[in-house]
Every structure is written in C-alpha cells, then in structure tokens.
C-alpha cells in the first residue's frame, strides 16, 4: 500500500478527488452524478489517447508536439473517408492510417534525419491546419450512426457501469488501451527496452538494442493512437468534421502527459480529473447556483489543475534522453 502511494501519488490523489466528488453528486441526485461522469469521460477520452501518443514517443526519447496535427488530419481523413466511400469502417481505417503516416513522418525526420524534433512537430501542425482547411468541404455527412456497445454485466455496475461500459467503440477501447499499455510499458521486455532507449540510449545500444529501429517503430505505431483520437472526435463524439475540430486538445494532452508523469494510468486519471473539472464548470453554469459570470467559472478546470499540480506533482521527471537524436557511437 505504501509503495502504491509512493509510486502513484498523483494518480491516487486525482482518483480520490474524482471519486469523492462523484459521491457528493451521487447524494445530490443519481442522474446528476451519472451525467457529470459521462461528460467528464467524454472530455477525457481524446485527451487520454493523445497523451498516450506523447507517452510512447517520449518514453522512447522522441518529443512529439505534432499530436494536434496528427489528430486533425486523422479526424479529417476519418470523416471524409467515411462520407465519400459510404463506409464507417473505411473511415476509421483511413483515420488510423493517417495518424500512423504522420507518426512515421515524425519518426523518419526526427530519428533518421536527426532534425530538431520540435520543428518536425510544428511542421506537422502547420501542414495539418493548411491541408484540412483547404480540402474541407461543406455538406458531407457520415453514412450512418456510429455504434454504441454495451458490455454485459459491467454495464450494470452502479454509477460507473453506464458511464464507462455502455459507449462507442473508441471510448470502450480507450479503457483497454490504457491498461494494456501500462502493462506493456512496465511489465514487458518491450517496455523495458523502450524506457531504456528514452533514458540512456548509449547503454541500450551497448546491450544490443537497435535504438534507431525501435524509435522508428514506436513513434510510428503511436500514431495509431493519434488516429484513434482524431477519428473519435469526428465520428464518435460528433458526426462532423470542422476546421480546427481538435481545438488544441493535442497540446492539452501534452500537459496531461507531464501531469501524469509519463505513465498511462496516471495520465488517464489526470485527463479524467480535467474532464471532471470541466463538467463541474458547465454544471455550475447550467444550474445558476452561483451568480458568477460563466467566463470566470470556465477557468475552473485550469485553476484546479494548477492547484493539483502544485500540491501533488512536483517530483515528475522527464525521460532523460527525450529530444536528443541518437547517433551510434557518440556520447
């Protein structure tokens, strides 16, 4: 128990805040608590997926600030792919593919060509904004409604059941992805090697790990998650593509990645906490319980984040070799 606390202080505190908060609302009204958590989770899903892109990248030693652009292009490819071909599945595949393609681009420029990783990310963001704005077409619609699945048994759990286990495919998959990735990163050989090339690539190289190849593969595959986040935005969370639909979620995700100390579970807790603060802000506005201008109420998530960061975090440390290109035989 003590070890859990030591290792996951942020996650424990955040989860405690969210759970206690939820039960307060539970007593005020069951429907209210459920709706607040639904809203928080809906807000958190794309942030979690995007934050995981950053986690995998930076754990491997590659800084990715192009997540925003990856998501935007993916949202675009997913929506218009589905609208033009008339198939939701093709849309999803195109979205995932677009995310991976841009991941591959970042990996190639950052790892192979050893360019400045920040610049490569900025290029992705600028290109994504330009391309999606230019090719945007009005009046397209999805060929159908995105499905909603219910997990038997789990969906009957009080409070959390309907929120987490009766949802669209991406939202359901996110839960699985967080757990699996956390396991992979800290309990498998792949995870150990990934962390090694992000901390001390020279040592990893000496141990016989192909640093370059591993970074290429990891950053490219992480693009799949960005693709999922994008497709979630344009197909599941809404059913339309809009210029700038990502609304800086890719950057917020980077903050959540840091907030979550580069760990999938903690990042998920951080995103959920942020979504919960958002839900409270909108609820205060809707209920008019306090007579404060909504512009001020809506700063609540950011103020809460600052407070939690100051209290709980403080000890997070980035992977040592992130942002540094690896050159065999140097260092």
């Amino acid at each position: 128990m003590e070890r859990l606390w030591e290792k996951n202080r942020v996650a424990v505190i955040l989860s405690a805040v969210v759970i206690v908060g939820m039960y307060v609302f539970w007593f005020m009204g069951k429907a209210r608590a459920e709706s607040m958590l639904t809203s928080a989770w809906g807000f958190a899903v794309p942030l979690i997926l995007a934050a995981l892109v950053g986690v995998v990248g930076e754990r491997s030693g590659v800084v990715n600030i192009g997540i925003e652009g990856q998501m935007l292009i993916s949202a675009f490819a997913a929506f218009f792919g589905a609208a033009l071909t008339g198939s939701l599945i093709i849309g999803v595949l195109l979205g995932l593919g677009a995310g991976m393609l841009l991941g591959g681009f970042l990996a190639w420029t950052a790892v192979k060509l050893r360019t400045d990783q920040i610049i490569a990310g900025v290029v992705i963001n600028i290109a994504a904004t330009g391309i999606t704005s230019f090719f945007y077409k009005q009046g397209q619609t999805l060929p159908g409604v995105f499905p909603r699945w219910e997990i038997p048994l789990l969906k009957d759990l009080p409070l959390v059941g309907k929120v987490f286990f009766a949802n669209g495919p991406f939202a359901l998959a996110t839960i699985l992805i967080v757990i699996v990735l956390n396991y992979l990163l800290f309990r498998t050989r792949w995870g150990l090697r990934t962390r090694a090339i992000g901390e001390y690539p020279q040592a990893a190289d000496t141990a016989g790990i192909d640093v370059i190849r591993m970074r290429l593969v990891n950053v490219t595959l992480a693009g799949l998650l960005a693709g999922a986040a994008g497709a979630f935005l344009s197909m599941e969370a809404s059913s339309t593509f809009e210029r700038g639909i990502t609304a800086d979620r890719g950057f917020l995700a980077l903050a959540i990645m840091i907030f979550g100390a580069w760990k999938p579970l903690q990042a998920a807790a951080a995103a959920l906490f942020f979504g919960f603060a958002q839900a409270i802000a909108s609820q205060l506005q809707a209920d008019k319980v306090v007579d404060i201008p909504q512009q001020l109420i809506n700063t609540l998530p950011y103020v809460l984040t600052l407070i939690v960061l100051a209290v709980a975090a403080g000890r997070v440390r980035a992977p040592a070799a992130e942002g540094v290109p690896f050159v065999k035989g140097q260092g």
Partner: protein
Amino acid sequence: MKAKRALALVPVLALALAGCGGSSGGGNAGGGGATDADCAKAEVLCVGLVTDTGKVDDKSFNQSAWEGVQAAVKELGGVSKYVETTDTKDYGNNIKQFTDKKYDAIVTVGFLMADATAAAAKGSPDVKFIGVDQAQPEKDAPANYTSLVFPEDQAGYAAGVLAAKLTKTGKLAQVLGLQIPPVEKFAKGFEAGAKSVKSDIQVTAVYHPAGTNAFTDPVWGGNEAKKALAQGADVVFGAGGKTGNGALAEVAKASGAGTSVFCIGVDTDQWNTVPEAQKCLVTSAMKNITLGVTDLVKQVKAGSIKGGYFNGTTGLADYHDLKGAVPADVQTAVADVVKGLADGSLKTGVTL
C-alpha cells in the same frame, strides 16, 4: 548533407500547402435578362451578392440571401450575379468585382463581412450595400450601408413556447455558442417563451467557454447535450453555429429521438443544413433572410432604402417529418405566437 536539404524542403512545402487557402473564388453568372455590361445605365437594376466563405447553395445563410436577391430581381427585372468567397481575406476583392462594374446594390452575407462591407460602402457612395446579419460600425457608419438584422429573441421565444408544450419532463436545455448579444437574445427569448407556457419549467443554458472556436466546436456541443439528456432534459435548443449543430446531432443519437426527445435548430431551417439531426429536429428558430433581402432590394429600386439597421422577421421552420409528433393544437398555438410576435401584439420582454 543531402538529407538536410531534403529536410529544409519539408517546412517550405507545408507552408506552401497552408497558403493554398488564399486563392480566390471565381464569379458565376446568375439569372437575368440584360447583361452586367449594362449596369452603368441607370434604368437597369444590377444586384451582386458576395457569399461568406462557402457555396451559394449551402442551404443556409448564403442560399437564403441569394434566393432573396433572385426573387426581387425576378419581380423587378434586371441582372443578378454572385461571387463565392473561398477565403475571408478576399471579401474586399470580391465586393470590388461588383463596384467596378457599377452595380446598384451589393448584398454581403454574414457578420464576418461587416468591416469589408463598411469599407467598400465608404469607397463607393453611390452603391447601396446590404449586409445580412451584420453590425454597423460604431461611428461614421456610411449612409449607403444597410444592415439586415433580426430580433433573435422573437425566434427564440417561439421556439421556447413549442419546447415547453412538447416537454414531458419539464426540463429544457440550451447549448449555446459564445456569449455575445445575438446568442444571448436567442437564449433569453427561448427561456421567456418557455416560461410563458409553464412558469415553473426548468431551462438550463450553457455557453461555450470563451475561445476562438466557440462556434466551431461540435465535440463540446455534443458532450453538453449528452449531459443535459442524462439529467432529464427532453428538448434541446442548439444555438451556436457548428457547436450547436454538434448538440443537435448528439440528441438525434439518443433513444427516443423524435418521439420523446427533440431538438431545435437555429438561424436557418437546419433540417437541410444538419441532415444527421433530422431524427430529432422538430423545427428551427429561423431568421427570414430571404424575405428581408427581397424587401431591401425592392427598396433600392424604389429609392427608399435608408442606412443603418433594418429589422427583418423571424419564424419557425417547417416541422418536416416530425409534424406527427406535434399535436395540432400545439401547432396552432405556436403559429399564433409567431404571428403575434411579427405584428407586435406580443412582446418577448427580453432585455440584455
């Protein structure tokens, strides 16, 4: 070295692609008997229309305004043409295409074009400018610039009356864009209308957290709608551009959409603009743009047009497929409200 050079190309390429949005849209000929070479003659009425970014057949503002122009020109005779804007930077140039040919009246669509229109009006004092849904400059408004505006509170009021008569749970929700006067007028009108039916009805309103994307955030709109539905609201009013559309589309996904859960659109008949919401869309709180534009073009011909604001009318869009879900007595009651608001016998009582 070769690799580095290839790399330098990448940002250049990206910037070039990003810059592509600047290309200007071409002019398209509309209907009409005479050609626009005759526009310099006083007796030929020439009306040009510049769309906001988007197509003239967008089933929304652009199309409504263009239909208004065509209706007027069909009745009065003359020439009408439109230019489609592809980039906001081109507003001025597109207007210039008409002023250069000595058009009599130029209609510009959408509040984003207010500055460009006011500037063009100053440069061509002989041409009458009609701005659809635009705010006049705070000072030195040119006398040849007329803004067609709409009493949003009236549209919201009628929608509120309908919503209050449809709800079974007694809970209505509004998902709104940025908190600016036109949106607030819709929202307060909606609430006033609902309360005029049942004084104890619960009406919630959430505005988008102030930001640059307040009108283009369907994800946020959908999430708020989902939350409202989970709290028992059964009629959702989405007023805030694409943000509101996101809310409408989310309601359409809910179980009971169109039978026990409804959504109401805004500005134009959103049955056409947001087909994914058709399942729940009972009506839209509509600005009668076509009618207003036709009126103003006729005033140009008659020489009676005045600068400043011109108040158009509002109404509710057709019920379309959900006509069966609205009881006949409710339909009559709502129609009476719309009529009362239009002739001034009914006031919304909304002040900002």
